[in-house]
């Protein structure tokens, strides 16, 4: 994907899906790289996030292979406003060297927000039909994921709020 094309007003479905996959691949490798560097007590968090990204990548590739979607790969669609944030985030994770759990979660939440906005806009820009449904689906997936992370954030950061009793392994 050339820089020039990335800045033009229109793009193709294939490029959009490729950008999305790239977004997830970058994140996956970012989290995977972080795993050994992060303290063991919060490593589960990064491991979970890496697993989630991998799941997204698989989902996108499965989508691309869907013959019906594949038929639309060259369709032109309007490039979303959120796209710049989206592609930027794919390249430049702003996370320190030794992040704590809250930082990791805030970073992950911000990424989910970008992805939601991207897919929602794409869905809005497409006519009702297969593509519209696909982007809608992707936006919902990200929304669900973000909701999970929000709940986790509340549980971890607002400890006074939720005394955790699930640690005792019976």
């Amino acid at each position: 994907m050339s820089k020039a094309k990335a800045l033009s007003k229109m793009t193709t479905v294939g490029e959009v899906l490729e950008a999305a996959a790239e977004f997830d691949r970058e994140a996956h490798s970012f989290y995977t790289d972080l795993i050994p560097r992060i303290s063991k007590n919060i490593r589960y968090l990064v491991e979970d996030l890496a697993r989630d990204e991998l799941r997204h990548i698989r989902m996108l590739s499965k989508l691309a292979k869907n013959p019906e979607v594949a038929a639309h790969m060259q369709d032109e669609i309007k490039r979303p406003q959120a796209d710049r944030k989206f592609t930027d985030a794919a390249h430049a994770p702003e996370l320190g060297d030794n992040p704590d759990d809250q930082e990791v979660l805030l970073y992950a939440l911000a990424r989910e927000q970008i992805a939601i906005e991207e897919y929602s806009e794409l869905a809005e820009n497409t006519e009702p039909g297969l593509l519209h449904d696909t982007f809608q689906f992707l936006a919902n997936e990200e929304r669900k994921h973000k909701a999970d992370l929000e709940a986790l954030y509340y549980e971890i950061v607002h400890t006074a709020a939720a005394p955790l009793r699930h640690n005792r392994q019976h």
Partner: protein
Amino acid sequence: MRDVLSPFTAWKHLFREPVTVLDPLNDRPGADRYRGFHQNDLEKCIGCGTCEVICQNAAIDMVPVSDPEDGDSGLRPMIDYGRCCWCALCVDVCMTGSLTMSNDYVWADANPDVFRFTPGVDPKPWNEEEKGYQRPGARVLASTERVHMGERTAKDRIDNFEEIVAGYTREEAMIEADRCVECGLCVATCPAHMDIPDYIKAIREQDYDKGLQLLYQTNPFSEVCGRVCTHNCETACAARHDGDPIAIRWLKRHITDEVPYERYVDLIGKPEAATGRKVAIVGSGPAGLTTAYDLARMGHKVVVYEARKSPGGMPRYGIPEYRLPYDMLDRDIDVIRAMGVEIVCNTRIGEDITMETLRADNDAVVLSIGLHLGRSTRIPGAESPDVDTAVPLLRKITDGEEVPVPEKLVVIGGGNVAMDIARSMARLQQVKHGKVGVTVTALESFDHFLADADEVRESREEGIEIFDARGPQEIVTFKSGKRKGRVKGLRTWLCDSIFDDQGRFNPHYDESDELVHPADMVIEAIGQAADVSILGKDLTEALEWTRGRIRVDVDGQTSEPWLWSAGDCVNGPDVVHAVADGHRVAQSINAMLAAKEEAAT
């Protein structure tokens, strides 16, 4: 003559309709309030067994019907109609109003055993019958109203840190203790399984020595818990279904108030003979010191290491003195010391002594370090020097260190810690400026509020403003000028829903409802974290973790065979839960030491 003829008046009755007729087809229902066969609303019944206790004919047995849970024993009354005298005292005394009597009274059967059944469980024709005897109005055989607890007025308490709650007098405590029905449903809910009905009975019998002994059998932090316990027991109290729950926490405190402190150690008794085994405990909060107390009483040598100036952990450094006077905490700690526990203060593990050293020098090590790191919202502006978190501030106040006291400040958070810091700062403001200027903004609405209702009420009495359902968006700072970078206020949005339909945290904000709460300082009181950095890299790596916390088994043992962990740092913040943890860990360590002893001989 009249005497001879008058009797023939009787003859006129010959031609009258008979007044008694045999009608085998139609029921003759009992009166509306007839006391017939029992009915029991299984959903309402909590299996407290008060009906069984009051039955003067021993007609009622409590039989298992469902699994027990908090505040419900799962037992339900089974009635033997060979004994029932239909006096309905069981209905009158019923704590929930679940037990009633139908107006059905006709039932014939050749098998006598069927006249013993469990109302509400066994299908009977009268189960749905609406008429019959019900307790008219409220429970009258035991009082439904809690004895009022005296406390100092807002005016009297706002410029000092003196204890607010007065404590019950003997007369008041007797009246309150009299309300208990001794069902014991609370015992399972109390994390430490304190002998609640028994010590309340001791108050009724004015046997405070016995009461104190009962307290210390299960809780060496009775002074503390008598004041600041989360009192889950009171949410399981049978009395709460029809009136106020028994003031269990205040009654516990009353016992400690009544027994002269000099007598405590005598009443509790001496520890067992020394075993020669050594245990090190990191952190002198309720979990650590309860473990220490138990182990010391079992005869083991216990040393507790505390990073701060004084022992006590969260109760000292997290709870303000107006709720828990520190000399009361010291009384609890001194009893624990009297059992032979050594407490070494000003010693931070990981710096002064490593975990490795502790491991080498002891038979077991217990990690009970609590949650002493304050969490930050990390919203924009949170890095300003005028922003602080609650926990370190509370610690400074306890240690008498200087803290900034601006005229106007905002607290973010809706839990008890938020109330603690807000009320502490309000007092300091009152002393310094002669007025209170504290605003609390909580994400949760009052329907889902986290802080105790009493805390909210008392905060307001003290002039603290509380905004509920406000999501913090930005700590507004001066962008230029002499005060550049200093806090100007807190910008919040209305949080119109905080949980999604599955009850998960998923806040939704109404951006149009924006407020800026002016302040010179913002204190974040949203949550705490454990400082696990003291473990060192190797131990952190060696340990098993579960969702950010050290993984422990039911007995509090970690994946390392020499290390146990207890209290807030593994189970979240709760004093009495920490005490319960301490008991469990002590039992487990003692069992391990006994096994070692056996292997050695």
